[in-house]
């Protein structure tokens, strides 16, 4: 490379340098040849990969590039690239915006309650399914409790709205039997979270139990056999054998849930909330939806979205890292 070296070096170093250069060049050439050969043999694989990669770039990575509008004064006419930079202005507005702060708070509260009440249910269900002796009964009940998972949120919301309606809804009818006055639940902020979380449990708990049932299926039968010989009752076996055996799965699911704590099913919230319940129902994503998609403040809403995405990413990666450590010893 350097001519200094060539002139200054002794003949010995010179040949050494030349050799080194040559071998580098040779290796380069061999490498290019190898890649060429590989492409000649395997080009079809890359053709197969191409459409999917193009899709990922166009529909998922290009929007990431578009995230820069969070730092820009975005104008539809100028487009993403040509709108002027304004730094962190949107973020400053965001963190002094009461509605946004409320949305962050609501997201965390709804998630936390969802976790607290929703997380144990599928585990309990799985433990209970495992204790059912009649296969027919087990199959039938499982078929029923998995069903709501496949029903769209619009329908679920429709059912909820109908069931909780003040005049005709079954809930108020039943309350009426006990002399309670009809309540318009869906306009009451204090009722939104219980209804939303309860609906979530009703819809997903059955289906989520599948993971735990699979873990239970992996427990060695010899453990139970020796417990029977030792005279353990089924109740004891459930707590002393089954539950500890699926503990790794439980921990991993918990970590994953915590990692996704910002992910509230906002689609359902959009369907169930109304201005009267914003104070307890509005979460970050519904806030973004209203400000951005309904209100047209794209750049500001994108800033909220970026904040959300970055925090979520950190949480998810942390959860992944932790669960990887656990999963080494577990099935899942």
């Amino acid at each position, binding site marked *: 490379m350097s001519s200094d070296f060539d002139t200054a070096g002794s003949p010995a170093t010179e040949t050494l340098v030349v050799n080194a250069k040559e071998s580098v060049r040779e290796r380069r050439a061999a490498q290019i040849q*190898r890649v060429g*050969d*590989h492409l*000649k*043999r395997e080009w079809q694989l890359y053709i197969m990969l191409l459409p999917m990669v193009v899709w990922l770039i166009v529909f998922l990575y290009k929007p990431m590039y578009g995230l820069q509008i969070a730092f820009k004064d975005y104008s539809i006419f100028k487009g993403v690239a040509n709108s002027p930079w304004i730094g962190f202005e949107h973020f400053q507005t965001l963190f002094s915006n009461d509605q946004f702060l409320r949305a962050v708070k609501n997201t965390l509260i709804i998630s936390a309650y969802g976790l607290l009440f929703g997380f144990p249910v599928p585990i309990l269900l799985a433990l209970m399914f495992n204790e059912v002796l009649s296969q027919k009964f087990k199959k039938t009940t499982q078929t029923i409790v998995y069903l709501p998972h496949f029903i769209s949120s619009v329908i679920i919301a429709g059912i909820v709205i109908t069931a909780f309606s003040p005049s005709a809804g079954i809930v108020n009818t039943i309350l009426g039997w006990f002399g309670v006055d009809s309540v318009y639940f869906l306009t009451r902020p204090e009722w939104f979270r219980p209804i939303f979380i309860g609906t979530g449990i009703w819809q997903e708990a059955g289906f989520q139990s599948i993971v735990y049932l699979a873990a239970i299926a992996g427990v060695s039968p010899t453990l139970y056999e020796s417990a029977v010989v030792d005279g353990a009752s089924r109740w004891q076996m459930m707590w002393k054998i089954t539950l500890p055996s699926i503990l790794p799965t439980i921990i991993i699911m918990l970590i994953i849930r915590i990692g996704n704590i910002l992910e509230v099913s906002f689609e359902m919230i959009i369907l169930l909330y109304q201005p009267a319940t914003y104070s307890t129902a509005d979460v970050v994503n519904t806030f973004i939806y209203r400000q951005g998609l309904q209100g047209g403040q794209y750049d500001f809403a994108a800033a909220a979205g970026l904040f959300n995405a970055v925090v979520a990413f950190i949480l998810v990666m942390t959860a992944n890292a932790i669960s990887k450590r656990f999963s080494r010893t577990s099935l899942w």
Partner: protein
Amino acid sequence: MSGVNLEGITKAYGGFQVVHGIDLEVQEKEFVVLVGPSGCGKSTTLRMIAGLEEISGGSLKIDDRVVNRIAPKDRDVAMVFQNYALYPHLNVEDNIGFGLRIRKESKEKIASSVEEVAGILGLTDYLKRRPADLSGGQRQRVAMGRAIVRQPKVFLFDEPLSNLDAKLRTQMRAEIKRLHKRLGVTSIYVTHDQVEAMTLADRIVVMHDGRIEQVGTPMELFQYPANTFVAEFLGSPPMNMVEATVGASDSGPIAIVGSAQVPLRRLPELQNCVGEKIIIGIRPEFAVPQPTGTKGAVPITVDLIETLGSEALLHATLQDKPFVIRTETMTSSNRLENVGAFTVPPEMIRVFDAESGRALLGQGKAQ
């Protein structure tokens, strides 16, 4: 000329070299068997011939044509896999005919070829069955049928019998041999099993750590192993290796083993090297058991006698190392208990250089 020619074939994974320059010439119609310990590069070599692994260096010729960079399908070779790789969703007929269909042969041609092959392999009654409904031996046959039907120039086998039980293995081994006689296609066969190697091979290639140790007919390898590795690898139980020192006597060279003296053949290499270390190799079959104290015999301590019907194995200790003798029981059972020494005819002793492990053969039998 459907030979296969390997010249300096190497293979490296990343920077890690696993095959170090293999030279091998397989003649047309020859049946060559690659053997060697696990991980020595047999499969890798075979797969490079098949075109399933890229060749890192050297040149590979099939039929005098360099095929290093030819796709597997254009090399005109067929391979039988260890797990057979029968397509589970196709029946026997379609499994055998798969290659022909891919090559867009006519329906009639496919049908008649498949029928012929099924006839050869005795699969005619099973054509409509799925692989899952076949026995191990039948699956093996289908795998062979899939290879045969295309009438390739070369057959490659990677441990095709290792998934079968001992009895079926013997049976299929004979069948492969018969097929090879009948079809006369050049074959390269990888195995762990030295009995397979000995019975099937026209020539055996012994590999070790990505290199060829020796190539030769089964008898050549058995009688004149080129080095201690081959000597110990072939034969069961393996050849006994005994450290010794060269000595001289009136009747010729001797090996001094402890206090005993074992007469050796008059090998030119042994002249003028009295006192040097050698290893003598004695096959268990060739050591003749002698009663304790026999004059001129090497004393040993017998620890265990295993009787295998017509034969017995004497497990003994010599110089703190195991020493095995295989002997017939019919003639000698009455004196097995008294054995405390052995003798060997000098021509049955193999002599190896202690340092390099190379055989001192005397008549240039080495490859």
